[in-house]
């Protein structure tokens, strides 16, 4: 059964015909060629496929593409449209918050959502906040430092606006 869906991805409107059973992560990667969103466990455990849907981080491997009709989606490619680094990306770079990078897009998207709800989290709150995103390289310490740096930077930004 085919459905016509329209959604906004990274600021651009996209219309496509999809099967009922097509998963959002496959739509994003295979139909739109936005391969920054990764598939890790495919069972909503690892968080590699995390994207922003209507302002909330979600795991796109556990979401039907057809249900995203009308949604506004941001993937890692869309968080800093002008080619510069988002403060969260810059913080991951500065703090060496990645080794292989496979978890990083999901980790960055999730961390941005975390700071939206809690702009100044404690270390413990950060660890709980990213508990659905697995990293098998860093041991998380530098990721936590990166989120702390980004929190500071983003608070400065929001105060100067």
């Amino acid at each position, binding site marked *: *059964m085919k*459905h016509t869906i329209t959604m906004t991805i990274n600021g651009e409107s996209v219309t496509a015909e999809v*099967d*009922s*059973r*097509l*998963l959002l992560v*496959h739509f994003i990667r295979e139909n739109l060629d936005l391969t920054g969103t990764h598939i890790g466990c*495919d*069972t*909503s*455990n690892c*968080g590699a496929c*995390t994207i922003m849907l209507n302002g*909330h*981080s*979600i*795991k796109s491997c*556990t*979401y*039907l593409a*057809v*249900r995203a*009709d009308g949604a506004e989606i941001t993937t890692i490619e869309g968080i800093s449209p002008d080619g510069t680094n988002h403060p969260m990306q810059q913080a991951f770079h500065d703090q060496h918050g990645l080794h292989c990078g496979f978890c990083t897009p999901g980790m960055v998207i*999730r961390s941005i*959502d*975390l700071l939206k*709800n809690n702009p100044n989290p404690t270390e413990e709150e950060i660890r*709980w*906040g990213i*508990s*659905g*995103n697995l990293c098998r390289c860093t041991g998380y310490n530098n990721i936590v430092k990166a989120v702390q740096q980004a929190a500071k930077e983003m608070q400065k930004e929001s105060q100067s606006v």
Partner: protein
Amino acid sequence: MIPSNFSYHKATSIKDAIALSQTHGEEAKYMSGGHSLLPMMKLRFASPEHIIDISKIDGLSYIKEEGDFLKLGALTTQSEMEYSPLIKQKYAIFSDAIKLTADPSVRNVGTIGGNIAHGDAANDQPALMLAMRATIIAEGLNGQKSIPIDEFFHGFYMTALEPSDILIEIQVPKAKNRSGGAYHKVERKVGDYATAGVAVHVELDDSGICQEIGIGLTNVSAVPMRLDRGEDI
């Protein structure tokens, strides 16, 4: 992993959803957040021929005190519960449990109603509902009905809901001056299903003597279980 083929139907209202369910019969399943059902479909543990998406129905997402009850709209997400000032202040048992349910991105989609209607003894919310003696409000072919939580869970993924029934609201007795509860969960890793979990709700009188107690258990039998004998003590 990709689910087997099914037809997708978006319901625009409760009536519309019930009509769709009637048309497609027992091969149809309602989906709200889908974070229990879709993983089962991907693993081919479930292969419904029709999915009726109820997540876009307006007016089923709320957290409010009304009369003698805390009323929770079925489509309220676990995250909305987590960040609700009312829940944080007066119903801390939910905060205990939700922090331990899956992870924040899953909680952004998974709903309180779905967590209960799925009928999985491994889910966390059913034990809380038992402890607080909640009432489930469902709407079906013959209008609305209210189901006491002790009559709701029938077996492994089986509940009192008929195929066309939609869980629309959960009613929990309103917090009293000296009432409260907690949820404790043993899990192998953060965000996992409970190896076992226990929800306890107590109400004290002015002298501090326990007047009411409710104890619900997660994942220790095929259905969410009330610890009757523990409550009697």
